[in-house]
């Protein structure tokens, strides 16, 4: 069964801006799906339409076979939303926010309180349950929005950049929670700017740009399209002549940092042979960006800021 079935979805705002140009998108039940794209690509508009916060101009949207034009309430009942921006009452207690939200979905109060306790405990907020939400830290507010979205046990959880502004440790703990929720059967749709996050979590990915879906495939297949990766080598300071390497695109960022574009057919051993021959001593190496990020930049045509391509010192 499809958790989400979008066909020919269009949105033109009153000012004439065409946010979506008739996109098609299918997400299978149980999937962990990533919806990626640059700012203004149409991700939040798509989510807004699915959750009925934005009215569509054309096309159809079905959530677990409930068409939002014909059976909106049933469709809504399946969805839990974690929006991009904080949107809870700043003067309410954390627990009241979660319990009320469950109530809006028709969950009886006693059961809503049990669920609130379960999710606040799970997300490490139980000790803060009686705090007014405005006194919570940014990370706690994010977790509160996740607890609120889960309060009615949705079949489809939509997260619009849930880890924006969250520190690395907390981000990874949230990944754990999301993976667990997904393993328990909840379908998850995630938009994120952290492509490492999408690569780690999502089994399938769609990339949206300028209101069109430009890629929609499995994460594995998408990464297979990547024909080269950029490695960053930390080297002992080189002499002023900056030795040239044969057969690879490379550039010296400074006298102790060298970037090399390594194609799939290239042999890293050969590269190290060249390093030795040119008296370049490598202290450490790393990927410049994660693989999905490299691919993303190429697909949406946005340059990596600060570095020119070629065999020149920049």
């Amino acid at each position, binding site marked *: 069964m499809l958790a989400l079935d979008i066909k020919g979805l269009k949105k033109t705002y009153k000012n004439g801006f065409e946010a979506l140009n008739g996109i098609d998108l299918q997400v299978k039940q149980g999937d962990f799906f990533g919806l990626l794209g640059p700012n203004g690509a149409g991700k939040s508009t798509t989510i807004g339409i699915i959750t009925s916060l934005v009215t569509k101009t054309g096309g159809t949207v079905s959530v677990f076979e409930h068409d939002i034009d014909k059976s909106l309430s049933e469709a809504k009942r399946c969805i839990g*939303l974690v929006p991009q921006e904080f949107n809870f009452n700043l003067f309410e207690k954390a627990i009241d926010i979660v319990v009320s939200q469950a109530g809006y979905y028709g969950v009886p109060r006693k059961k809503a309180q049990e669920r609130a306790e379960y999710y606040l405990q799970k997300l490490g907020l139980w000790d803060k349950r009686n705090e007014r939400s405005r006194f919570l830290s940014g990370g706690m507010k994010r977790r509160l929005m996740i607890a609120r979205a889960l309060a009615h046990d949705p079949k489809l959880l939509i997260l619009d950049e849930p880890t924006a502004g969250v520190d690395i440790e907390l981000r990874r703990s949230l990944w754990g929670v999301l993976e667990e929720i997904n393993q328990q059967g909840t379908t998850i749709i995630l938009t994120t700017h952290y492509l490492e996050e999408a690569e780690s979590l999502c089994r399938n990915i769609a990339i949206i740009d300028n209101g069109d879906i430009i890629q929609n495939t499995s994460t594995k297949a998408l990464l297979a399209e990547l024909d080269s990766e950029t490695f960053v080598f930390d080297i002992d300071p080189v002499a002023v002549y900056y030795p040239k390497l044969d057969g690879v695109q490379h550039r010296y960022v400074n006298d102790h940092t060298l970037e090399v574009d390594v194609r799939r057919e290239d042999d890293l051993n050969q590269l190290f042979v060249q390093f030795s021959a040119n008296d370049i001593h490598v202290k450490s190496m790393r990927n410049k960006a994660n693989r999905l990020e490299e691919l993303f930049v190429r697909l949406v045509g946005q340059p990596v800021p600060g570095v020119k391509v070629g065999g020149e010192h920049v």
Partner: protein
Amino acid sequence: MFNRYNWIAAGSIYRKEVVRFMRIWVQTLVPPAITMSLYFVVFGSLIGKRIGDMGGFNYMDYIVPGLIMMSVITNSYANVASSFFSSKFQRHVEELLVAPVPNGFILMAYVAGGVTRGILVGLLVTVVSLFFTDMEIHHLGIIVLVVVLTAILFSLGGMINAIFAKKFDDISIIPTFVLTPLTYLGGVFYSINLIPEFWQKVSLANPILYMINAFRYGFLGISDIDVVTALGLIGGFIVLLTGFNLYLLNKGIGLRS
């Protein structure tokens, strides 16, 4: 439509509304009691003694129903207007918009919250008035009916105001420039029989005149307006404003992009 889920949802919204105004009781419940006490002291006790009788009753007895009604009107209106607008402003109205709560139930719950605050403040003012006058009750049923219907009507009005409001100023314009003048000119402090005939006819276009007079009838048994006409008018306005509110909510005006 009228299933258990929707009633639970409406109950959750209503509970949240009541908790909200009770949490800030110093801002919501105390000021009307103090303001009305001043009215009782200044207009009732001090000036009222010089005015003498009105409609066959001493001036204090005459103005008490109008002042109670004035506090009910302003508080039921303000509760819904400020609460719903705040939910738009802080964007937590989205909690409701993404949930499967029919718009009719959202409206009902917010109105119930406004009615509760309006009546609670009305009761407080009534208690305060007992320090200044021995209250008569001519017809309890009329009192209850008029106060509940009026609170519903002005809660609906507050909702419309909140839906259209884009900034906090927008929810104070109507109370300041429309409700207050209409209330003061709606027979709280005088009988329209005292004013020239032309202005009597102009006053008949003021809906608040009907509510205050019908309410006064419940206490004193006197009214400048036919009570049945007044009830019919309030009922008509309730139907009209309910329909308009539902139209706005269904269209998502001011709520959805």
